[in-house]
């Protein structure tokens, strides 16, 4: 279906963007209760490996291996979630980071799953993009509903003042575990999707930079609304691609406009400057991130902005 619309390269970009979006939502779930987790990359790895083992070693169809990956990640998520209950702030950050690193080490030494060579020849699934889009739609609907529900409010309350919420009767322990486990499941699903498109994963695929980028997606997108993960992951994943194409746009400028001094100098300068091979692109990417945190530390979309938008839409 969506197959025909895009060529292979574009498909890949879209799949990676989609996987990042799903990963961003996996961070958003525990974050709603105030738990900042740098371990989502680890859960992605768990989901990737679990599902890949099912499809490659046991011939299980992807449609079954996919939720299986999520399930395994979720179980491990709840296990990690227990000790995480009584830890906050930077300590939780470090605990989840340690978890992600341990997963990496396990992947590196587990020869059944490829060990240092990595897990190769994972069966490619041609409809990953459809799965990705479907998952994103479900996630947005889920979080939109959660936002307006009593449970969603309870999660916000836990985030804002955990002790007060507990004293008001909110079952903080169960809700935090639920949120954390949910995040792990979503991350596991994202990992499974990635693995069956890229057909190769190894211990460094879901490394600390990935873990940290997932956090970045949500904060840059705006952590106070459920659109944040979509916006942040979409924006930040596509940004380097966009930078790459800037030069192509420049070349569309009619020659007549730049044939004379000083425009020809300007053109030459821009043309050289926009020669964005990988590293240069990423330097600009990093700068943009810093600038964004200076100018819009609350993210692209804030709760107040959304409220104002809705208000104007309703009263226009």
């Amino acid at each position: 279906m969506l197959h025909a619309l895009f060529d292979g390269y574009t498909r890949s970009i879209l799949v990676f963007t989609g996987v990042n979006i799903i990963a961003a939502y996996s961070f958003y779930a525990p974050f709603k209760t105030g738990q900042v987790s740098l371990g989502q990359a680890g859960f992605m790895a768990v989901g990737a490996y679990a599902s890949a083992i099912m499809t490659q070693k046991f011939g299980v169809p992807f449609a079954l291996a996919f939720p299986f990956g999520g399930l395994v990640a979720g179980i491990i998520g709840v296990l990690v979630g227990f000790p995480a209950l009584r830890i906050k702030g930077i300590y939780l950050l470090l605990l989840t980071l340690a978890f992600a690193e341990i997963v990496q080490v396990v992947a590196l030494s587990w020869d059944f799953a490829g060990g240092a060579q990595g897990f190769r020849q994972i069966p490619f699934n041609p409809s990953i993009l459809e799965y990705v889009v479907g998952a994103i739609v479900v996630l947005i609907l889920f979080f939109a509903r959660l936002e307006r529900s009593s449970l969603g409010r309870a999660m916000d309350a836990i985030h804002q003042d955990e002790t007060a919420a507990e004293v008001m009767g909110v079952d903080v322990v169960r809700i935090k575990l639920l949120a954390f486990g949910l995040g792990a499941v979503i991350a596991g699903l994202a990992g499974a999707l990635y693995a069956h498109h890229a057909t190769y994963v190894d211990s460094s695929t879901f490394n600390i930079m990935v873990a940290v980028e997932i956090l970045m997606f949500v904060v840059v997108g705006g952590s106070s609304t459920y659109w944040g993960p979509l916006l942040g992951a979409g924006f930040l994943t596509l940004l380097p691609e966009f930078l790459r194409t800037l030069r192509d746009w420049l070349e569309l400028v009619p020659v007549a406009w730049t044939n004379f001094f000083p425009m020809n100098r300007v053109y030459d300068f821009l043309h050289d400057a926009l020669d964005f091979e990988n590293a240069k692109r990423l330097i600009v990417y990093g700068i943009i991130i810093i600038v964004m945190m200076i100018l819009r530390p609350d993210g692209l979309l804030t709760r107040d902005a959304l409220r104002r938008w809705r208000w104007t839409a309703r009263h226009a």
Partner: protein
Amino acid sequence: MIYQQLINGLMLGASYSLVAIGYTLIFGVLNLLYFAHGEVFMVGAFAGLYLVVYGGANIYVAMLGAMIACGVLGVIAVYVSVRPVPKDRPLAPLISTIGLTIVLQNLAVYIFGGQQVAFPETIKQQLYQLGPVTMSSVQIFILGVAVTLMAALWLFIERSKMGRAIRATAESHETAALLGVDVNRVVLVTFALGSGIAGIAGVLDGVKNSGISPFMGLAAAVKGLVVMLLGGLGNVVGAMLAGLLLGMIEILSAAYIGTTERDLASFLILILILLYRPTGLFGTRTADER
């Protein structure tokens, strides 16, 4: 044999300590996880490399140059990515340092390429016998520099006026300001100092491993975090001791259990500490317990 391993452990640990010192100083003063610190370490290594290869400098000049370059980098980082970001927003300062990490790492890739680069030999290889232990000149050099640095830093923090100012600021910005401390200046000094030391650590690492890469910063960043927690957040002496301890634990587990397991050991220890003694082995030194 075990003495040999202990020496190796101390060398590895010294590297960890020097990086963790900057981390914990900055965290103590600003409650900020300065994620880009690992990249500063990497920049130091490359600065040293540059000086040796293109400037024909000897190792001491290279270290000095790296220290200055990284110190300046630290100051720039404060103006560019720390100060302008509002501190009351959750996580925004951390993301800003992540952006800085990306910039620095890719700057290095852009300039030096993505491969490992050989670090030229700068110290004449010689073996010395000290009792049951055989040490090479390189090992003695690295340990000597590391210990000297740590001792000098300790004296600075404990005895000098600026050191007292740093400790006061780590306790409470308000109280320090009331006592006449220029908090902004303290932050700058802390960054410069921490970064400079990390820079030297980078050069030492290059000497030890005879090779550096633009990606060496990430591993250093992660290990630095572990050591910082182990030693107690904000606790400089704790970071020094914890680094050495972790280095020895890693080398010993690599020797007696297996090389991949060595990282496992440090992360398991991290988890245990987080769960049962989050203040670290030696206690934290920040005002806000977060």
